[in-house]
Structures are given as structure tokens and as C-alpha cells.
């Protein structure tokens, strides 16, 4: 079963709004352009759904045996988000390791500087 015209329009509008925000955050330097590539790819995928609906219907039905294309797309997006969340958890833990290391070594270095200054005086 295909998407209705209303759903197609909503999908395109939501994607364009998302693209707008991605560009806005790049402009404000809140997202690194390299990180934005991923989200722009997601936008391109979302835009391609109403445009290439027939191809998705074919893949959905013949490769995965799903009658409803929209379910295929939902599952695809959920799998993508799960993988990406897992990747972010790994990155977050790496950052956390580094933050603890930096706090510790800043404190040790600061103590050494303080003592050197005292000895100079």
C-alpha cells in the first residue's frame, strides 16, 4: 500500500523543516559540518520516500515480504536510530573517560604550579 497525497506533503514539509534546522545549527557552529552530513543523508532519504515510492514498495514487498511500505520505512528508521544511539553511547563513554583524565591531570598540574610559585616566592 502506498502513501496518500496528504502524507507525502507532510513528509516533505517535515523533512524541509528538518533541513532548515540542520543548516541553522551549522551556521551557528552548534553542529560540526562533518556531523551534519549524517543528518543531511537522513533528510535526503526522507525526501526520497515520496519521490521514489514505487521503488520502496518493490523492495518492501519483494525483498522483505512487507505489504505496507510505511512499516518497512518505520522499521528501517528505528533500526538506524538504535544503531546511532548505540554509537553515541560509545562516544559519550569515550568523552567521559577523557573528561575524568583531564580533570585529574589539570588538578595535579595546578598543584605543581602552585608549589613552584610558592618556592619562587
Amino acid at each position, binding site marked *: 500500500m502506498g502513501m496518500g497525497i496528504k502524507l507525502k506533503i507532510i513528509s516533505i514539509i517535515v523533512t524541509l523543516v528538518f533541513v532548515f534546522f540542520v543548516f541553522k545549527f551549522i551556521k551557528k557552529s552548534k553542529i560540526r559540518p562533518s556531523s551534519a552530513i549524517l543528518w543531511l543523508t537522513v533528510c535526503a532519504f526522507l525526501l526520497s520516500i515520496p519521490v521514489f515510492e514505487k521503488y520502496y514498495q518493490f523492495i518492501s514487498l519483494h525483498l522483505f515480504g512487507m505489504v505496507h511500505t510505511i512499516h518497512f520505512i518505520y522499521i528501517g528508521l528505528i533500526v538506524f536510530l538504535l544503531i546511532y544511539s548505540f554509537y553515541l553511547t560509545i562516544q559519550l563513554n569515550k568523552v*567521559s*573517560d577523557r573528561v*575524568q583524565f583531564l*580533570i*585529574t591531570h589539570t*588538578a*595535579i598540574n595546578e598543584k605543581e604550579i602552585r608549589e613552584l610559585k610558592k618556592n619562587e616566592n
Partner: protein
Amino acid sequence: MKILVAVIAYNEEKNIANTLDDLARNNCGYDIVVIDNGSSDNTHGICEKLGVPYLRHCINTGSPYGTVRSYFDYAGKYNYDIICQFDGDGQHIASELPKIIDPVKNNVADFVIGSRFLQKKGFKSSFLRRIGINLFSFINSSITGRKISDTTSGFKAYGKNVIDYFYKTYKNEIYDINQILLLSFFNGARIMEVPIVMKAREHGASEFNFFRSAAFPVKGLINIMGCLLQGKAR
């Protein structure tokens, strides 16, 4: 033998002077360093005034375990043979330090826990926290094959091999009390418990509020499972 007593402090301006005074009066030849975990009060100012060395975290590490990383790295860098963890809230008693230092000094143990529960004296802990403590003690005793009654005690001594392991080998984040115990055990540390007495804190509140105390057993259990996986991977 170089011995370091690391005094852990977070917003302890009302307690730290008494704690340091107690340590000075009962000092048996060890160095002292205060680890100030990003206090917003004058904890570091009091240390400065008393002439006690201190490491000041530029921000709070979000949990007390960031201070553990600091004292292991400090002790590793300055080549200490033994470190003792001592709370800056006045709950620990300096005259009890030899009880945890001596087993490490005499090469009987590498990781000594001062347990509040081996004798029926002194301050124990809140009811909610004791649920977690008993649960972890049971699990950790089963894993290590040693009776551990007070996994979460902050009164501990570590020997050279534990210091070197956390300074040179394990560079990742330290985030849990069970993690320190189990990773040390998997690294070959001999674990021992000795009875100690603890006092209730005189001023201020513990970093463990109701929600932290409630989440503590759940997070701890997951962390224990993680440590078992890491231990098996070694």
C-alpha cells in the same frame, strides 16, 4: 615505604579542618593530600591556610569516583607504595588508619577495606543504602571467595600493585565502587577486611540523596556484570 592518605572532600568547609587536625595529631609518618572534588565552598582555602597539599578539581566529576582516579594517578606519579582513602566529612577516625595500612605494609593484603559491620559499634548507614551494601557484599563475597561485609566503605588502603594497575594499565573512567574492588581482584589483588569504627558526619549532607541511594543497587548490579565480562576478557 611511602604512604599517602587521600582525603576526599566536596563542600566540606565545616568538617575539613577537624578532619585534618585529627590526621595531624595521629600521623604515623604518612603524607596527606586533600582531593577537592570541585567544591563551591572554601574547602580548598582551609587546606591552603592549614598548609595541607590539595588537588582541586576544576569541576565536580559528578560522582565521588573521579577523586579515586585522582589519587591513583597522583600516587602513581609520585611513586607511593600505599594509598589510604579517608573521607573529609569527619566520619573516619585517623587513629584507625594503622588497622588498614598494616596488612598492606606487612604484605598480607593489597586491598584492605575498613568495615563498619564487623563489630557492633559506631555509625552504620541509612536503611536504603544498607540494602545496596548487603546485596553488593553478598555478590562480591561470592565472586572473590572472601567474606566482604562493607563493599562501599570509603575507608580503604591499596598496595603498590593496585596503584600501578589503575595508574598504568586501566586508563578508563572509574565510576563504581564494585568496579574498583573487582578489577583489583581480577588483577590479582589480595582482598581483606578489618573492623573499624565510623562516626556520623557532624555538618552537611552526604552526596547520596534519596534518588541516588535508590538507583545505587540497580547501577551497581549492572556495573558488577560489566566487571565480570571485563574480568573474563582478561
